[in-house]
Every structure is written in C-alpha cells, then in structure tokens.
C-alpha cells in the first residue's frame, strides 16, 4: 500500500480524534485531583495513569424519547400482535430499534505522570527558598535544556522527532534492503521521539534538600501509609520537575529511624511504637553529615498518624526546635484514614506549639483522611501564595 503511504500521515479522522481526546484531557484537567488521588501510581514503575473517562458528545436538537417508539421492520411470517421481544429480555445486539442507549461511551484515557505533574505543579513552589552560598547561581528565566527521549507529550518536538525518524529509516534502509520481513521500517518508534526539555519556570538560584520522613509504626494502618506515600509520590515528582538541583532524602521511623533509598522507602513497613524524635534525630544527623545549612535550603515533610509516645513529648519538641533553626520549612501531614481529624493529635500539637525563635523556619500542618485530600495537601504546602505566613489549621 506504499502508493497510499502519504495518506497515513494526513488521516483526518485520527487528527479529529486526537483533538477530541485533547478536549477530554482539558475536561479531565479540572478533575485531576480526584483522579490522581484514586490512581494507583505507587504500584510498579509505571509512568502513566489510566483513568476511565466519558467520550464527549456533540449535541443536536432532539425530540424527547417517546414512551413507545414506532418503527418498520421486515420479516417472514410476522403477524399483527406478535411479540418479537419480551419486556424481560432486552433486545439482542442488532435487533433493538436503536438509539436507545443513554449517554456516551466510556474509554480509558492514559495520562502521563509527567503531564499530570506539569499541570498540578504549575503554580507550586518550595516555600521560603533562599539563595545559599555555593549554589549554582542561575537567574530565573525561560530555560531550554535540550532534548530527551522521555517527557510530557505536550513537549514533543515534532520536527526533531521527525528528523530522528528520517535518520533512522535512512540508516535502516541502507543497512538491510529490504528489511528481514519485507516490510518498510516503521514511520515512528518510541526511540525517535524527542521531547523539549524546556524549563519554563524559574529555576532556583539555590540548592535544596528535601527530607521525606514517614512514620511506619504499628499504629499506621495500611490505608494511612498509602495516603502518606501518595502524598510523597506527588510531592517528589513535582519537586523534581520544578527544580533541577534538588536532593531528596527518605527516612522512615518507628521507635528508631533509618534512611532508605527511594524505591525501598515506598515499600517499607514496620511495627512497634512511635517515637518522632528518633526520626528528627536521624534527619539532624544526615544534615550534619552531608547538607550544611549554609549551602542548602533544608525542607522536612513529615507524615504520621500523630500518635507520638507521650514520653517522647519533650524530646521531640526539643529536636523539632533545633531542626527549625536550620530548616527553611517543616511540614506535618496528619494522616488518618479511619477517622477524620483536624490536627488534634499529639504530633499536630507538637508542631503547633513549637516555640519559634527569630531565625527559625516556618512550620505547617495539614490533615489528610481521604485520597481526595492529597492534592489539597500538596497545594497547601507548595502553593505559591502561602510561602510566608503559616497558620496551623
């Protein structure tokens, strides 16, 4: 069919179908927080999220559906009064008078995690980001960062991808003609695609390290842990997208604390009691070892059900106060899947009552009890407007 090969490039139906999908995406965009919350992104290393959506409908003036529809059929030996379909048995495929089905069709839309992060993080910033000595001193600007083989679909560089495809096909055609199976090389493969790494947001003239501290003690139910991990997942994705020079450190604690690499962090579970100060202490140690506050903006996000051991109250408060001296921001995510809480837990109190001294960084807290809250939490902690003042509600 090579004489019609040109045609495949200009398929109008496919073009209009893509436009329809684009419109669906725009519509989905508005419901993204709910969709994101329910998507199972933590399983496996998938870079896409599948969400069921409805096809759009282009409406025309249409009559009300009558209670009784009249039609004309054709058949052998059919007599007046014959019943061709009973009320119990729905008309089989191809036999119903048609036009009876309500609403539109559903299909599954595959969204790239990169796309979602782009949308969600459009207006997000790390709070209180300050220039630090030794950081790469770059001004905020529109920055092109070359091309990559992976990226958000919206950043696909068609011209360059096409060039890659041409190059590959030229070399393939030259290498083996005809190809082993007699087919011409495919027009595009995934390897041909090039995405613009165009950073359209401000880049920090700073270096930053973000500590993600999670309580994995026995009191954290599976649902709690899932909430916490989802939050961390979207936070990390966004931070990485937003800032090039950012380091992340993953710490989990029960009565003691451990540092994990990212993959294991999202799988970790423990049991036993909760001693928040152990986590804070671990963070302090890592800071002292690797991240000098003079060179790094330091951030801590702590997710816990808030049931800290009462015996730890003084210790935890002291550690948190010390941490604040060097950290730009400390956030507490109160997870409680079972009951809806409003920052009434021991740890929430700890964050609220922490005495602020002059140089101390800001604190913030946010309660999450349903998956729908996760996005609100991300917004709360990273939203552009709230970088300064913080109230614990």
């Amino acid at each position, binding site marked *: 069919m090579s004489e*019609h090969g040109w045609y*495949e490039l200009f398929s109008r139906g496919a073009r209009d179908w893509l*436009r*329809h999908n684009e419109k669906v995406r725009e519509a989905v965009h508005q419901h993204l927080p709910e969709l994101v919350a329910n998507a199972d992104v933590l399983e496996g290393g998938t870079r896409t999220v599948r969400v069921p959506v409805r096809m759009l409908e282009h409406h025309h*003036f249409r*009559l009300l559906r009558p*209670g009784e529809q009249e039609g004309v059929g054709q*058949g052998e030996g*059919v007599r*007046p009064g014959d019943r061709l379909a009973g009320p119990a048995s729905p008309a089989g495929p191809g036999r119903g008078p048609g036009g009876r089905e309500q609403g539109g069709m559903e299909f599954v839309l595959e969204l790239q995690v990169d796309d979602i992060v782009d949308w969600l993080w459009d207006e997000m910033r790390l709070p209180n980001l300050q220039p630090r000595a030794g950081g790469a001193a770059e001004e905020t600007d529109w920055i092109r960062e070359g091309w990559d083989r992976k990226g958000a679909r919206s950043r696909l560089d068609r011209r360059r991808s096409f060039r890659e495809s041409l190059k590959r096909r030229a070399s393939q055609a030259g290498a083996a003609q005809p190809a082993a199976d007699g087919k011409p090389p495919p027009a595009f493969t995934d390897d041909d695609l090039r995405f613009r790494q165009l950073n359209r947001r401000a880049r920090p003239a700073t270096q930053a390290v973000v500590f993600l501290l999670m309580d994995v003690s026995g009191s954290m139910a599976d649902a709690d842990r899932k909430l916490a991990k989802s939050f961390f997942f979207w936070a990390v994705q966004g931070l990485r997208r937003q800032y090039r020079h950012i380091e992340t450190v993953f710490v989990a604690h029960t009565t003691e604390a451990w540092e994990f690499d990212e993959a294991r962090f999202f799988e970790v579970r423990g049991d036993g009691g909760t001693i928040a100060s152990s986590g804070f202490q671990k963070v302090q140690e890592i800071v002292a070892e690797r991240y000098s506050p003079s060179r790094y903006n330091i951030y801590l996000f702590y997710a816990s059900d808030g049931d800290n051991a009462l015996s730890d109250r003084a210790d935890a408060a002291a550690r948190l106060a010390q941490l604040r001296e060097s950290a730009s921001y400390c956030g507490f995510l109160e997870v409680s899947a079972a009951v809806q809480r409003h920052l009434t837990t021991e740890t929430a109190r700890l964050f609220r009552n922490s005495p602020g001294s002059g140089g101390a960084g800001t604190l913030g807290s946010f309660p999450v009890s349903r998956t729908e809250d996760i996005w609100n939490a991300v917004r709360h902690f990273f939203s552009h407007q709230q970088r300064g003042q913080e109230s614990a509600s």
Partner: protein
Amino acid sequence: MSGASWRDHVGAIQRLAAQAGLEHDPVEFEAVPDSFMMEISVYGLPVRMPHWSFGLRYITQLIQHRMGHSRLFEVVFPGNPGHAYLAAGNSLAENVLVTAHVLGHADFSRNNLLFRRSQQQVGANIVEGAARHAQQIAQAIGEHGQARVERVLDAALALEQHVDTGQPLERPRFPDYAPPRAAPGDDGFRRRYEALGPDTGRRAPEPGRVRAPIPPRPERDLLWFVAQYAPDLEGWERDIFLAVREESFYFQPVFATQVMNEGWASYWHARLLREASFLPQDAYLDAAKCHSDVVRPWASGENVALAINPYHLGFTLWERIIEEQGVEAARRIMREDDDFGFVRNQLTRERAEALGLFRFRASANGEVRVAEHDLGALHEALLAPKYNFGAPAVAASRIAVDGSLELVHDHRLDGRGLDPEASTRVLEYLHRVWRRPVRLKTVDSRGHEIEMAVSAEAQPR
C-alpha cells in the same frame, strides 16, 4: 493488485449502461485504502472541515469496522466529472459490480430533480467545494486560534440539519423596512367619513418608514439566519456558518432520496451484471453473491429485522416498477420523486406484503409488538425519521429589542417536545456565537409549554 484488471472492464460496463439508457456525466474512479473509505463515510466527503465530533464518529466506525460489522465498497460524489472512490480491498468481481452501481448513482444524480437543483445551487463539484471550506477553516484556525474556530463549528455543525433547501443558497436578507402601507381603498364608508371634514383632535400619523419585524415569519433555516442576523458575528464566523450551510444543501438531497437512489443503483448493477457476458464465470458468481449480500433485508441467519435495508427496499420497488411499467416510466419517477413520493406512491399494499414489511411498537421496557396492518401508517412510520432533514422543527421566531434570539419548536408537527438536556447544550453552543441571550420554547413530556434559556457566560466553557 487486482486494480488493473478491474479497470479493463470499466469501458465495457459503461457501454452496457449507455445501451440500457443510463445518462450520466463522466465519472473518475479511484481505488483508495479502506481507512480512507472509512473517513469518507464518516465525514460524508473526502476532504472536509476539521471538527472533534468527526473524530468521535471516526473512532466509533473504526471499532465497528474492526468488529466486522460494516464494509464499504464505494462512495460516489455527483458532479461533472463525478468522483467514485472504490475500496482498494475489493475483489475484481466486487469492483465490476461496484462500477455498475456507481454508474446507476451517476445516472440518478444527473437526472433527479432534487440533485439537479442542489447542484445548480452548490455548484457542480461539491468535493472541491468542501475541500475549499476545509482550507478556509484551517486558515481561520491559523488566524483566530483553534478554540475560537471550534466554538463557531460547535454551533454551526449542531445546526447542520436546520436549513431550508426550498430557498436559494444565495438568499437575500429580509427587507429591513415594512412596505409602505397601501393607500386606503375607495369605499363608501371612507367617502362618507371624509365628508365630515378633517379630524382636528388627532394628529395625522407621521409618514415614514416602519421597521419590519425580523424574521417576518418563523425562519427554519437557522444556519442562514444566524449568519445574517447574529448581532456581533464576525466576518470569518459568518463564513463558517455559510460553509456548513452549503454542505448541508449538498447533503439534503442525498438524505431525502436514499431509498430511491440506493435502490436505483442496486437495480442497475444487478441488471448490467446479468448482461455482462464478458465477465469470467467465477467472477460473475462472486459478483452475484456480493449483490445478494448488499440487498439482503436481514442479517444472515435471521429472518426478521427491526429495521429496513434501504438497498433492499429500493431495489425491490424499482424491480417491480420496471417489470410492470417499463424503464421509461421508472425513469420518469426517478427524475421527479424523492423518498416521500416514492414510498407513498410505489409502496403499495401488495408490494409491502410481498416484502414482508410490518410496523412495530417498541415500549420503553423493551417489549416489541407487531402492529396491525395499515398502509398509510406504515408509510408514515418509514418516512417519519426523514422529515425536515431528520431534525426537529425548530425555527427562529423573533429577535427581541435587547438582541436576544427567540426560537420556537413546532411540537405539534413533531408530535412531542424537545429533549431539554440536549437542547440546552445546543443553546449553549448557539449562545457563544449569538452573544446575546438565547431562548427556546417547546413542551415537556406532559405537553406543558416550557422555555429553555441560556444567557450569561455562567456555563462551563
């Protein structure tokens, strides 16, 4: 490729057609891939303006096609020359049949009154006209952006059936002023009244022009009306409305003569095939099988269908007409009728019975019962979906002083009211181009009058 050998027969088939009395303009045949065939059927034209709703139809068709529900052999476009697209996957036998079928269509579109009229209006080549529209819209997208163009197309394509092909395509605006009132006639009363002397207590009415109401009577060509009278419509938006309207003028006769037209083409492909002695025997058999597949009234393995195959109905009627009255009488009917006249005049009681046609009622709970025999009711049930280009009778009735548009639905004509949800969505599309409030009167399911209105941009985008 079988293409070469199929083309060898085109000349012979054309000679046969000419001997049989078919009169057609030259037709250009082109074999195209199945995917292109599918797009032609989705868009109705080989190149047509872009809109997301076509994408939706495309994907639905694609799925059906994959599931083997439908197969397209050919699509023909009238004109001089006409254009016929044949599926490249057709076998030799199928293409011989299809060639004859195409010539039947070409004969029909050259001679049928509705088609002739539409071609006078739209021009002899809709394929190129539509391509020009597509280009014009691509240009508008470049200048004004996809979102704005889409907003116009959402409205125009939603109203695509609402045209009045009884009016010329190039239609002048309504007169802006009412005609001056005619001088009062000479009658006894007036003479006696004037003999009383001048009426001093009342000022004489000022002579002057009176603005005519727009529209003077309910206007059902909504595409034209919006293009002419939308208060703040920009030139390029108006052009889009008129482009959609022009295409509707082309589609309307295709819609209104489907049974006749498909039947006519099927009759002639069958007849020319019988006379095609030049065909190899096996190709002949294949073609005959293909014919019986196309005109069969119900799906294989069944003997009752709750729908009519227009190919079969038209084919059978033409076969009887030509058998009983001869080709000349049939040609006269073909020239003068549309499906309404054709079905009412030609679908006699005997023919309906021979075809096994019946009327049924399907209630909402899924029960389907065969109704009593009644030829008139059978005709109406067959034709009901074809009235008014298949659209409810909605007309523009008034432009209010604030520029808002009032539409009225003739629910008595349609027998029931409009679906409020779908109609409100259409009003939303319309409001975005009318840019003033838009209202629509119809009745609800209990027959009470209701009004739907869309005004401020409070709706979601």
